[in-house]
Every structure is written in structure tokens, then in C-alpha cells.
């Protein structure tokens, strides 16, 4: 049985990654799971300088999901390179660094700083709904996405994954723009912008007023978008959005994702990543699948 997948020339032992922002840089969940068993660890977003993030409360539970407005708190690229990269290097897994910024220069500074680091790929977060509402328009504008992708590709030494927001009218338009800019892969979806009101207190449930909704409740939206994007671009797609079980992950793979990421599920099941990886192997045995890649996108041919 062969669970390996390749994204932009980087071979992952299996298609299971962590979703950025839900797994830190692996230290905390390393107490629950063997990081060597993961296809890749995608780190929490890191910026050129430390970010303090948003005021609390930063999260709220929603039906079958949650809403967060952490605001990309991160220690900055220097501490990250000194502490988190060496930590992850101890494990036999791929390292994908999620990069965030307020403006193109900030992204580029981080991307350049990463060029000499022993990391495997970077994922560019142009889709966080919780940072500077004016800037959000960036990841929602095809022209900007293409331009930023091209700028990043010019300085990046590692393959570049662009992470897309679902908060757009037509996600395939943004996906095509990222591809045209030279993206090596696309990951989707980031969280859906939402709002929750605390009716007893008659106030917003999170201090930021709006937050990003994630978890099982949003999975059908994510599967639909992964399907659309996988059929609109040639680069590999990494699917995420409410994956908690192998069956969830397989929905994305069958819809066209080459790899998948487990996010919010880590919060209610710290072993979710491993269980998804093991469950995919079980599925392959049951369905007599030799190579995992045979499953990628096959619902399209099957139709009903």
C-alpha cells in the first residue's frame, strides 16, 4: 500500500497535514501524537515581527463548530527560526511554514528570511478574516492575488502554497489567479467569516466582533470549493475544512485534493491527525486501493 503523495516535488509519506493555527509548531500536540506519523506539519502563521493578536475573548463555540479571532498572534520570524524550525527538524515529517503579513513587503521579508531555513514548503496566508478588515480584500481580489504570488515566487527558494479564503463569490477565479502568479499548490479553505451574538449579554461573542468559523459544520462548503478549484487549476490542491475523521478526509481526496489538513478537530481530539492517517490506510485496504493517488478526484468520472 502506497500512501505517498507529491506536492510541488515534495514527497509526503501520507496526505495528512495539520491546518495552520490549530497545531502551533507541533510542540504541544507532540505530547499526544507521534509527529513522525504525519505527512507534514503546517505551522501557525508567522510574520516578520511579533504580533500580539486580538483582545479576548478570542473564540466562541458554534453549532458543530467554532469561531475564532485570534488575530495571528505569533512570535515573529526570528524566534520562529531559532526555536520552532529546529524543534520540527527532529522529526521525519515535512515542514510547511505558514506566512502572514499586513502588506506585500512583510510577506516578502518572511519569505526571504525562510530561504536559508531547512523547511520544505511555505503556505502564504492571504485569507485570514481576523486581521485588518481593509486588508482582507487582498485575498479576495484576483489581481492582487496574482501579483503577490508572483512577487513571492520571485524570492522564494521553497515551493509556495497559496491559502485561499472561501469568503468570495467565485473561488475558482482567485485560484486561477494564484496559479497564473506561479503558485506551486493551493490550500483551501480558510475559515468562513461569521458573527455570533451573546444574547444574554447583548454583545458580540468574540471581542473582534467577527471571527472565522471552522469545524464539521462548514465541511460541505469546503468540499464543494475544493471540488470546484481542483477542476479549475492544474496545480495540486490541499483540502481542509472540518476534517475530523478519515471519511471526512476522503471526501476531500475524492473531490480532488492531493492532500488534506486536520484543524479544529485537534481541539476536541488531540489524536485526530493520526486517526485520520490510520483510517485512510484502513479504507485503502477495504477498497483494495494500491496507491492513494488513484483516489484523487475520482468522483468526477464516477458522477453519481
Amino acid at each position, binding site marked *: 500500500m502506497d500512501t505517498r503523495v507529491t506536492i510541488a516535488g515534495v514527497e509526503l509519506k501520507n496526505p495528512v497535514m495539520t491546518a495552520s*493555527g*490549530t*497545531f*502551533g509548531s507541533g*510542540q*504541544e*500536540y507532540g*505530547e*499526544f501524537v507521534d509527529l513522525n506519523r504525519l505527512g507534514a506539519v503546517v505551522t*501557525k502563521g508567522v510574520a516578520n515581527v*511579533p*504580533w*500580539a*493578536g486580538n483582545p*479576548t*475573548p*478570542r*473564540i*466562541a*463555540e458554534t*453549532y*458543530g*463548530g*467554532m469561531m*475564532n479571532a*485570534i488575530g495571528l*498572534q505569533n*512570535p*515573529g520570524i526570528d*524566534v520562529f527560526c531559532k526555536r520552532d524550525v529546529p524543534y520540527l527538524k527532529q522529526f521525519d515529517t515535512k515542514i510547511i511554514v505558514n506566512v502572514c503579513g499586513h502588506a506585500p513587503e512583510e510577506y516578502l521579508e518572511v519569505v526571504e528570511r525562510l530561504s536559508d531555513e531547512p523547511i520544505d514548503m511555505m503556505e502564504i496566508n492571504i485569507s485570514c478574516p481576523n486581521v485588518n478588515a481593509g486588508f482582507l480584500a487582498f485575498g479576495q481580489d484576483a489581481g492582487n492575488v496574482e501579483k503577490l504570488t508572483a512577487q513571492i515566487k520571485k524570492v522564494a527558494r521553497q515551493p509556495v502554497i497559496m491559502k485561499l479564503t472561501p469568503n468570495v463569490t467565485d473561488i475558482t477565479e482567485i485560484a486561477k489567479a494564484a496559479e497564473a502568479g506561479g503558485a506551486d499548490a493551493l490550500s483551501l479553505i480558510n475559515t468562513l467569516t461569521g458573527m455570533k451574538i451573546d444574547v*444574554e449579554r447583548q454583545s458580540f461573542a468574540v471581542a473582534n466582533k467577527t471571527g472565522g468559523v471552522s*469545524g*464539521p459544520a462548514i465541511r460541505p462548503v469546503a468540499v464543494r470549493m475544493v471540488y470546484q478549484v481542483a477542476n479549475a487549476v492544474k496545480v495540486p490542491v490541499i483540502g481542509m475544512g472540518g476534517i475530523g475523521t478519515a471519511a471526512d478526509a476522503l471526501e476531500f481526496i475524492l473531490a480532488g485534493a492531493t492532500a488534506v489538513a486536520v484543524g*479544529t478537530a*485537534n*481541539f*476536541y*481530539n*488531540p*489524536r485526530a491527525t493520526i486517526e485520520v492517517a490510520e483510517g485512510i490506510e484502513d479504507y485503502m485496504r477495504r477498497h483494495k486501493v494500491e496507491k492513494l493517488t488513484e483516489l484523487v478526484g475520482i468522483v468526477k468520472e464516477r458522477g453519481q
Partner: protein
Amino acid sequence: MSCKRKETAVIVSRECLLPGIFSMWLEAGEVAKEAVPGQFISMYANDRSKLLPRPISLCEIDKEKGFLRVVYRVTGKGTGTEQFSKMKAGDAMEIMGPLGNGFPLEAGKGKRALLIGGGIGVPPMLELAKQLDADKLLVMGYRDEQFLTKEFGQNGGLYLATEDGSAGTRGNVLDAIREHKLTADVIYACGPSPMLRAIKQYSEEKHIVCYVSMEERMACGVGACLACVCGSKEIDGHSNVHNKRVCKDGPVFLSTEVEI
């Protein structure tokens, strides 16, 4: 140091202490073995529409039996805590723990210690009162009706404060401290933010070493998601900003290192 784990606990008993306040003993041998006063557990609802664990402080730890006691408030209709309050002896519940750092017992050893609890911050002070080897004065504050007072009375000199004046000093815990002229070398406190803020100020004025147990809405409970941060006086070594993680770096902090 890594000893936290996810475990299926079995409910040994459940009791309603007051309207909306419930006590539950859980059989959770592995977690109980490692737990110390001031730590908490993540309790998971069985209903998957409620994804996130509820962080609940440990009220008592019985290592011999492998039991944990939690005392919690039901936060509303249809909530996870309401679901817990309806569970019966023999029911299973997923928990994760022990989480957080706990109260430093050494800091109070052999000294005069003031243990202050307010509202639903009262429960964790009980196991601390049981384990702390010190000259203990316990000050517990309630809105009106009181709970756990019998257990506290068995573990130190107990002073009560109630907002409605139904027991002890009318007012808050600091009113009780002033009325009885209580002094101490070290303070341990858990309760709502306004109470902790006042105690922080009081202890700093009186130059008393003070540990506060903080509360914040949590998601992961293990320090990964950065939901439950509190402000820190200095740049924190882990976050590299003025933030500490309540679930992992706390919930117990030296009052001088956090902003409340």
C-alpha cells in the same frame, strides 16, 4: 514534563450543591495520579454539536481511589455544563488532563497563607487547602448561598463574605480580610477578574507574594491555539509578546507577572 492524557472517565457520583452548582466525582485513575491542586481538566460533551472541551478546575483529588472531584456552574440552557449536570453515576465522559501548572505549594510551606476564592472560583481552593502545609486562613466569597463551606471548615480557619450579608461579612472577600484584620505571607486566589484585580492591587500594596488563578475562554486547552491568553507584564518567553497562555503557562500566575 508530559503527563497529560485523554481518558474516558466514569462518573462515580453527582450531586446538586445549589441551584445551578453541581459536584461530580469522576473515576479517572491516570489523570488523578498526576494531578496537583490548581490544575484543571477538559471535559467533553457527548454531543458532537458541542465540539470544544469545557475547562473545569479540580476541586479534590483522591489519588488512592483514582478519583477527581469537579464542582461547576451550569452556564445556561442547552449548554455543555447543563449536559454534564444531567449525567448519572456510571456514565462515561471523555476528559483530558491534568492541564495547566497548578498552585506552587512550596511558596507557602510553613508560612501564613491566605487562600481566597470567589464564586465559581471557590472549588480549586479546596484541594489546595487540603494539600498546602501552612498556617491557613481561608476566605471564601459568595453572592448569596454558599457551597463547600463544611469541607473548607475542616481545612483551616474559614471566613466568609456574601454580597447579601446572609453569612459572614457583607461584601466581598477583601471586606472580610479587612474586617478580621487577616494578614499573610502569601496569597493564593481564584475567582472572577474584578476580584483578582482587587487582590492583585491589595497584595502589591501590602507587599504580599500573591498567586492568582486566571480564567479565559479556551479551545485546545494545551497551549497550541492561543485563544486563552492574558496580558503579561514583560514580554513572555514563549509568545515573544505581552501575552501568556492561561491553559499552558497558567492558569496560576504570580500576580505581578500578569495584567488583570
